[in-house]
């Protein structure tokens, strides 16, 4: 009825059998043997994908929200509609948004779908922070810039934007940490990132090493990214330290 390959398949021992997996078979809370075996094939690729997902989302979100903020800075009427739309996007539960985007033609179970959702969560935070940062530049400073003969563009690029950097970066920090956390949920529709080992581990009834390891990586990534952004801010605004 069903043709078998001559002599049947060769069945390897799969890593040496039970004695190589005592910790795993006993379902101890944390198996370092699992970690060393799965860092290369499972965790490292997942971490790399997670970083890429985050970088793309934050970069695109930064470009969109900064552009909108710069326009709204000069054209006040734009602020309200942008705030309303980005606030609505921000309040949609992530799980629902991923499921809503999935049937849209051209999106489906892809990285694009994940990025569209992730970007939409960064807009409100970065738009509001950038706009607030620009608005908080003291009028005297703006006047001084004008008095020095700077036109509006030069004043924006050389005076107002630099002074808004701490507020802008504060927005980038919140957006980045948010995206790192949400990107674990994105693995439901885009099978990559740290959400993959986390989801696999959740459906595992007894063995918890994978959940602990992947969870710790996600937390560690968020802390590292936040720390890096603090350093970037310090480098960009040396005057805030000099005081």
């Amino acid at each position: 009825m069903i043709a078998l390959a001559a002599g049947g398949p060769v069945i390897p021992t799969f890593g040496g059998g039970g004695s190589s997996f005592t910790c795993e078979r006993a379902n101890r809370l944390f198996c370092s043997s699992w970690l060393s075996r799965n860092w290369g094939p499972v965790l490292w690729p997942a971490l790399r994908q997670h970083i890429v997902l985050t970088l793309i989302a934050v970069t695109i979100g930064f470009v969109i929200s900064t552009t909108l903020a710069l326009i709204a800075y000069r054209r006040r009427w734009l602020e309200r509609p942008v705030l309303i739309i980005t606030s609505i996007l921000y309040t949609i539960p992530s799980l629902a948004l991923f499921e809503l985007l999935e049937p849209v033609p051209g999106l489906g179970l892809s990285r694009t779908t994940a990025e569209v959702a992730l970007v939409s969560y960064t807009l409100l935070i970065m738009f509001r922070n950038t706009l607030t940062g620009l608005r908080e530049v003291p009028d005297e400073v703006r006047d001084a810039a004008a008095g020095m003969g700077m036109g509006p563009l030069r004043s924006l690029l050389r005076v107002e934007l630099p002074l808004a950097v701490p507020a802008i970066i504060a927005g980038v920090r919140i957006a980045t940490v948010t995206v790192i956390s949400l990107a674990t949920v994105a693995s439901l529709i885009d099978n990559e990132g740290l959400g993959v080992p986390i989801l696999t581990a959740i459906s595992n009834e007894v063995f918890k090493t994978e959940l602990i390891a992947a969870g710790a990586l996600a937390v560690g990534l968020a802390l590292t990214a936040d720390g890096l952004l603090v350093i970037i801010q310090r480098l960009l605004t040396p005057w805030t330290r000099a005081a």
Partner: protein
Amino acid sequence: MQRSNYRRALAGVLTVAVAVAVAACGSSSSSSSKSSSKPSSSAATSGPGAGKPPIVIGDKNFTEEYILGSLYQEALEAKGFKVTLKGNIGSSEITYKALTSGQIDMYPEYTGTLLTAIAGDNKPPTSAQQTYTLAKAFVEKHGLTVLDQTPFYDSDALAVTKAFAAKNHVASIPDLKKLGHSLKLGGAPEFATRFAGLVGLKQLYGLNPTFVPLAIGITYQAIDTGKVDTFDAFTTDAQLTSGKYVLLSDPMRVFGFQNVAPVLKASLVNTEGPAFAQTINQVSSLLTLDAIRKMNAAVALDQQAPATVAHQFLAANGLA
């Protein structure tokens, strides 16, 4: 003085923005070719699959499907095909929809499930071959086809603990009828609406249990803690080797015949060339009950990654 600070700050902002953008683009292009983790990738750039359209393979939401997905992926990649694996998509119903809506090109499906859960055909077939033929006829009406089925079968089965079986004198599914509505029966949510599930158990055996929906990974935990009395197990589950559980016999074959056959877009067989179907059929022909049980154990008990286990099996059989 102040001025030069601002200039430096502005230059800094621009440098960082550009650096971030470049990093994002650079890393995205280098990793986009790969969406699943796999050890010592042997993806060939030559071979019969080179230059053929890329294929998206999906798999369902449990261990055996992850292994099957990885097996077909790596065997095809070794022949030069370009393959993306979308793992852990969901239940049969969801994964089949992903196939018909074009999200994926192929996934490994159980012939009996195809017939009952997808086609809604509730007349239990009498043999594995009949199940395969009926399933094939059904999918071909929808622009799909199936390749050869595997020697192994993984049918659903009701499992109880040894202690429960002894206490209540049950050895087969009809023995559960006397427990009436007090019987707590666990299974994935879709089990409640399938003929090869609660519907068939009611119709064929007159059971009227209390249904407890369970996530697929926690069924053994649920029976160990007494949350359920019996649950929907799979005959190839690695946990069954522990001897703590008894599978109840199914004299009316409500769970049917469940060999695996990859279901795929019919057009793929032509566009991918003859080596495509040959490679997949070659992999399927190697999947005996013994082989798949040992691979399930390596993943479920030894906690190895499905792709690692698939790679070892293919390498041992000259297909990696």
